[in-house]
Each structure stands twice: as C-alpha cells, then as structure tokens.
C-alpha cells in the first residue's frame, strides 16, 4: 500500500509537469490542446539525439551521475531539448493554431490539435521508427528503503520527483514575484484588459508556448528515463495529463501539480483494490467524479 502510494507520487511528478504546460495553454488560448502530449514526445526524442551527439563528441560525458542512469551528456541534452521543444511549440502555433485562431472557433482549434497530434506522432515514427528507444540500456536497481512494509525506490525516480518539484517551485516564484509572471496571469485572466494595460498579447502567447513546451520536454525526458521512449508517448500520456489538468481546474498551475499527483496516486492505488486490467480506467473515473462534484476542477474558477 505504501509502495503504491510512493509509486503514484513518482508517476504523478511526470504528469504534473505535463499538466502545468497544458493548463497554461488551455487557459490562455481557451482551447483543449490534444497535441500537448506530443510535445513530450518531441522533448524525449530531441534529448535522445543530443545525448547521442554529446556522447560521441565528448566521451567523458557518458559517465553516469552518481547512482542515476542519467549521464552528464543527457543532463546537458535536457537544456537543448527544452529549447528545441519550446521552439517547436512556438512553430506549431505560428503554422497552425495562430491561423485557425484568427479564422475559426474554439472547436476548430480542438480539431486542429487532433490533426497536429497525428502529424507529430507519425513524423516522429517516420524519423525514429516505431520501435522503442532507451537513454541507457543499463538497469539501475532500486534501493530498498524498508523491508516491512516493502518499500523500493529507484534513484532515478527520486531525482525526477525532486527536479519536478524544483521546477514547479521556480514556476511559482516567477508567476507570483516577477512582472513577467503578473503579465502572464493578467493575460490569462482577461486578455483585453491586459492589452489595455500595455501587455503585448502576442508576446505572452509566445511565452506560454515556450514555457509549456519546455516543461513538456522535461516531462518527456523524465518519462523516458523511467520508462522507454516510443512515438506513442503522446498517445499514452494525453489522457492522464488531461485528467490531471481537469482535476486541478483549467488555468490553475497549483491545481495542475496537485492533479498530476492525484491521477498518479489513484491509478497506482487502484491496483490494490481493482483487478490489474482496470487501472487505465482510473483517470477517466477521476475526470467524471471531479466534473460531477466540482465542474471547474479543484482549484478552477468559473471562466467569464
């Protein structure tokens, strides 16, 4: 039971990172972006490319960091992947969403996002093949924290959790203490009023995509570290991430963080009660329950 709880927290940290980006985009641009999870895929694969590149150019970087399976080369790749994914998100907005936004309705945006998701997924499959990749073929063994009750934790997962929490903390400070953060929140709250106050809407939208893409890249890489990388990452993660966003309440960054953990923990705990085949249904049950009880999510406010 304790093990399930811990496992859930660790899975939840990846979902949270993805959900934070999604909730920002959804709140500011007011559409359900089904292609957001594909950004995780872009992040994971670009890190794979940079990792191979750095390892080949600078062999000393292939040493693992402490007890982690992450190498220095991969750590460096995270930074590059972050930028690439952020820019990809921006590019997709320029090419697709911006045009649809100017002409179509919110529903057109949702359909466009489905299309974008398909395209990204298949392009990734075309380039890298449909098989799975791994950052490291070594298996890092879990550390036994306690024998009774049995509690095992992998160093990678602890690192993922700590890093995710750190990133969220930084996000919190940026949003609550800086002018940039105020501007972002103002635009999310009321775009027209924000513009009246001299905030450039287009800049803010670009910023949201950059930040959302960057967070997605980190989530994708962390996912790849503890699982494996395949072109189906987006398809597999889109619903849990949506569930986390909806549970937390669209637009609430703290809600998204909490939502990620709730979805992760409940899917993990569900196994203790339900037969193992039913665990994928948990995110949906949570979405339904939250929407029935608190239609705007746990932290959500009614949008005007």
């Amino acid at each position: 039971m304790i093990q399930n709880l811990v496992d859930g927290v660790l899975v939840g940290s990846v979902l949270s990172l993805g959900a934070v980006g999604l909730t920002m985009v959804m709140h500011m641009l007011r559409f359900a972006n089904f292609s957001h999870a594909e950004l995780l895929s872009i992040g994971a694969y670009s890190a794979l490319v940079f990792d191979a590149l750095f390892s080949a150019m600078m062999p000393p970087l292939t040493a693992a960091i402490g007890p982690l399976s992450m190498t220095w080369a991969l750590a460096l790749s995270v930074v590059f992947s972050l930028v690439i994914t952020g820019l990809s998100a921006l590019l997709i907005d320029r090419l697709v969403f911006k045009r649809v936004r100017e002409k179509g309705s919110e529903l057109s945006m949702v359909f466009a996002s489905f299309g974008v998701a398909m395209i990204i997924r298949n392009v990734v499959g075309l380039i890298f093949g449909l098989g799975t990749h791994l950052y490291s073929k070594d298996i890092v063994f879990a550390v036994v924290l306690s024998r009774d009750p049995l509690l095992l934790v992998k160093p990678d997962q602890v690192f993922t959790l700590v890093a995710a929490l750190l990133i969220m903390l930084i996000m919190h400070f940026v949003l609550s203490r800086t002018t940039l953060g105020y501007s972002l929140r103002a635009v999310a709250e009321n775009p027209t009023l924000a513009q009246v106050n001299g905030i450039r809407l287009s800049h803010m939208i670009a910023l949201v995509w950059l930040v959302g893409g960057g967070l997605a890249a980190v989530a994708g890489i962390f996912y790849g570290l503890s699982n494996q990388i395949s072109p189906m990452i987006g398809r597999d993660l889109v619903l849990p991430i949506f569930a986390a966003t909806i549970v937390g309440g669209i637009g609430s960054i703290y809600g998204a963080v909490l939502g990620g953990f709730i979805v992760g923990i409940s899917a993990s705990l569900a196994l203790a009660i339900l037969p193992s085949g039913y665990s994928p249904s948990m995110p949906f049950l949570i979405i339904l329950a939250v929407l029935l009880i608190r239609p705007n999510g746990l932290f959500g406010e009614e949008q005007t």
Partner: protein
Amino acid sequence: MKMGSKHITGLALGLTVSAFGSAAMASDCTTKIGTVLPTSVDWGRPIAETAGFAVEQVNEAGGVQGCEIEMVLRDSQVDPKVGVDAAKALVDLDGVQVLIGAVSSGVSMPILTSVTVPAGVAQFSCCSSSGAFTTLAEEGGTNGLWFRTFATSGVQAAVGAKVAKDQGYGSIAILYKNDDWGQDISKLIAEDLVDMGITVTASVAINDGQPSYRAEVTEALGGQPEAIYMALYPNEGASVVREWLSLGGTQNMVMANSLKSDEFRDNVGLQYLGNALGTDTASPRVASADAFVASYKERFESEPNGPGLSNSYDATMIALLAMEAAGKDATGAEIAASVSRVTDPAGTPVSADAAGFAAAREALTAGGSVMYQGATGNVRFDANGDVSAPAVVWSFTETGTQEKQYVTLQEVDALMMGD
C-alpha cells in the same frame, strides 16, 4: 478479379491406373467438397493449393468411395461476411458435406456457428487458433462437427508449465497482455502450473501504453515468486521486465513465443536474460513430416515454408479419409464421427500420400481403423476438435535465439492429458 471458384479435378488419373486398379471406377461419379480460404491474399493461395494437392493425391488413389473428389474453392477475402456467403453457397448450392476452412478464427467462427453447424456439415480448419472454439465445443456448440489441425495456446501453456517445473520453480507470478490471447494463455498456464504443484502468486494484466508499469510490477513482486511467466509483446514486455529487474525481481523467467524478439532482448539486455527460457510450437520432426516436405517440393518446386501449409494438407487429407471411412453418401455428422476412426493411435499406420490413402481404404473396408501419419505428425484430435503440436524451448543468444530443448508431440500430448 479473383475467381470465385476453382475446380481441381484429378490430374493424373489415367497415369496411375496401373498402380491402383480401383482408379478406373473413380470417373463414374464425383463428390464435391467445399473450401473457403483467403485465396486473394498472398499467404492464402499456397494454403488453398496445398489443400488441392491432397485432393489430387486422393483422386490419384481412386477417389473417395469410388468417386472422384471435386474441390470447389471459394475466396474468403479474410472477411467474415464474404466467408459466410461463400460457405453458404457451398453448402446450399453445391450440397457439400465437408467444408475446409477458413484460415482466420474471425472467419471460421461465423461460418461454424451460422453455416456448418446449422446445416450439419463437418468443418475442418487448417489455421484457426482462437481459444473461443474450444470454449464453444465445451459448451456443445459445435455438435462435434469442428476440427482444426492448428495447435491452440494450450500447447505453449503446457510447455511453459513444464519448463517451470523442470527448472524447479516453486512459485510463479504471471504477467499477461490484457487481450484475448493473453487472457486465454494466462488462464491456461495458471491451471497447468497449479496442476504441477507450483504456486501462482499473482496473475497481473498488463495494458499496453501505460505511463508506468510500476504498480503492476509491484503487485507481481508482492508474492515474492521464484520466477515469472510472461505472455507479453516485446514493447511493454521490455518496460515491464526492466521495471521488474530494477525492483529486485528474479531473473528466472519463462516466456511465450511473443517475446522471441530482438527488440525485447536488446532493450532488456542479454546479461539479464541468462535464465530466461521461452516456448514456441514447432513443426514435427518425424518421417511423415519429412515425407510431406519432399512430396510438396516435387509437386510445387518450392519448400513448404508458408504458414499453415502442412496444417492445410492434413486438414484436407483427414477430411477425405473420414469421408472414406463414413461410407457412401455420408452426412457431415457421419463424416465428423468417423474422424476418430482415421486418427486412431491403435489403427493401421498410413502415410500421407496416394499410396497411404489406398492403404487406408483397404484397412477401413476390412472394418479396421487407421492412424494417419501426416505432415504435422500423427494427428489426434481431442474431444473439442483441437490438436496439439510439438514444441521447442528456446533462450536468447547474442545473435537471436537458440533451441534448448525439443518437446515431441507425444510429450506435449502427455502434458496436455495431464491437465
């Protein structure tokens, strides 16, 4: 533009009159048998041609009950609807009492339930493997009219359990893919393991595309099994095994043939798979199987390497032998009831060729029974019309897999009977 039907008549009748005196009578009458096979797909055509090959040989030996056999072939297009229409036409218009087909379980099943069983026609399939047929037969839904020469998942489950026992594992956790096949095989192996006195500590369903398999793996780990059995596909299989190993799970593994994949080996790492043994069904290593390969090569000038060829040959040959045993103008039910008489382990052994068919006719006329020694070995159906097959136990190597052990048909049968 595929032809709807194709008539294969005895080619070499005149040529063999000297060898088989009864051949002269064969031209007096013809008996039709129906065939519904996916001739419009590249792997389906050889299956149909092999069935036709069996018919040729039987006609060479003078046909069934003195009548030449006419095989009416219809294309199923691997489509249940097309297959059912084809089977209906064969049964209603051509009046066949024996139907050979289909390949896919999804086509064979609707033909069985909506055409052959209602009409009382005997159906022989070369290649359908679904466990649903066994279930249907157990429930009495096939009226004993259904036979297949393709081994079910039961073979792999039985051999998997044997491997576990031979390795001396006292307890096993089962991890299975959450689909028809995985559920089927996990139930079968769980029963087999328990029968062998091995404790099944957990049976965990694995859905593909999950963000993490930790919870599932943790559940399997909970019972602290000495080994794991995996009926998984390579993709999620690699994720699950990596998670399993990293959490300190045992490296004692038994795997179904689905994990016989380089991707799986590479992503897990050969160093962790030293104690991993896989199972798979195999073609028999008996003289009759070699004889089929030789005669096939002579007839088609290629190796019988496609899927289901030997199975198709045996399905057709057994159907024709059963027709011979059932007597003139026998109904489908009578033919189906005669199958046990031509696959009788205590009967006169007959080979899978024209001479064998002639010998079988002699033995059957004398009131005896025969043991058909076919392309897939000495075929024997159980009460549900299922057969077993020989199996191999394999392990991973640097370059692929290697065979560790060959389990003969007799051994597999003994294992399956032990259930």
